[in-house]
């Protein structure tokens, strides 16, 4: 019943209609295809590029801040401050440097050390602990308790303290105390410079000024990590004139 001859098919109104609008049909199919497949792909690509750029801009902002921080530093000053902090808390313990520091503590406090332990005898973990027996006045003991943490040119903590009146004089006290010496190996590793702790610089400067006022000298060495002096030179008595 639907069988049409070739002439009938080509002259049928439907065919004429189709023929007249074939361009529109092809165009709409093409546009829909573009809209469905090509357009989303372009949107995704554009978003990806935007995202990459956004991330890169954020990274660049941090890098700019990092570079400004680096540029704000004076290499010589930094070198000196690092040596100061590295002297207070060396990368690795140098037991031979401990006895001069104990002598420094005696000079700083004015106490009379009558007996002191050997750095090669006592350890608590990585710390070297030195027991000291001394004779001192109450004021000297107070100075010890205020000045011990770093003013003898090394970072020291107090492990114990015991005092009793000295039998020879009512003004003197027998003092037994233990001090621990700290070392700490730090490395830059893969860290990047986000901030410079102003307290670190202030603290190092404060210590530096204190050392300078006491006449201590420190050699200038490269700031490179490998070159940090582990066996830093220390005078027999850095606070003395000799």
């Amino acid at each position: 019943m639907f069988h049409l001859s070739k002439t009938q098919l080509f002259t049928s109104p439907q065919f004429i209609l189709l023929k007249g609008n074939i361009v529109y049909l092809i165009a709409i199919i093409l546009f829909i295809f573009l809209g469905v497949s090509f357009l989303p792909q372009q949107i995704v690509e554009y978003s990806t590029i935007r995202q990459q750029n956004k991330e890169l801009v954020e990274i660049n902002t941090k890098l700019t801040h990092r570079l400004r921080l680096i540029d704000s530093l004076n290499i010589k000053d930094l070198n000196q401050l690092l040596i100061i902090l590295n002297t207070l808390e060396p990368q690795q313990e140098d037991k031979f440097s401990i006895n001069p520091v104990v002598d420094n503590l005696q000079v700083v406090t004015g106490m009379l050390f009558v007996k002191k332990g050997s750095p090669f005898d006592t350890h608590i973990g990585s710390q070297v602990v030195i027991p000291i027996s001394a004779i001192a006045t109450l004021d000297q003991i107070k100075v010890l308790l205020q000045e011990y943490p770093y003013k003898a040119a090394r970072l020291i903590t107090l492990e114990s303290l015991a005092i009793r009146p000295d039998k020879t004089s009512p003004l003197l006290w027998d003092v037994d105390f233990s001090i621990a010496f700290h070392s700490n190996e730090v490395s830059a590793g893969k860290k990047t410079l986000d901030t410079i702790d102003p307290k670190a610089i202030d603290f190092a400067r404060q210590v530096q000024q204190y050392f300078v006022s006491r006449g201590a000298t420190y050699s200038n060495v490269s700031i490179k990590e490998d070159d940090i002096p582990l066996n830093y030179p220390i005078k027999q008595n850095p606070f003395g004139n000799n």
Partner: protein
Amino acid sequence: MSLEINLLHKHKTSKFTQRVILSIRIATVVIGATVLLSLSVLFYLKKNAQVQLIASQQYHDKIMSSIQKKQDIETGAILLNEKYKGIHTVITSELPYSVYFQTLFKELPNSSESGRITNLSMNKKGEATTQLLFPNILALTKFLSRIESESFQKQFSAVKTSGLSFSQEGSKEILFSLDVSFK
């Protein structure tokens, strides 16, 4: 005024078909214009974004190169920060022995009349063990009443006596042990 001749006059859906065709044409134009416009805008934006990305990349490379050249300064600054952090941790975790010491000498008697310290030791837990020598029972009683006072107790988190004895047989002097913990 236009004159339309309906060639499909006899067809049942001629009007409907015309409307569909018209809709298809309009839809083609609208969709086509929208798609082409969108694509043009997207190409433009994408090109701009690519230019920006390249510029950012070049800036990144430049700044990284500058940082690389100053690597030793950066390493030094990082080490300074790390070193200070370690030192600061040690110093801040240290007990305020000086304050403890002054508190003890302020709160405990230290004269031949009121009693005096014969032994004092402090440890890292913030505890102090003291031994006091009192000339007589009256001086000890005075001190014991002082221990009860609020001003004395607010200095310490714990106060306990650990010993009481005469210093020697037949002596009036009394040895009194007092252990305190600081707040």
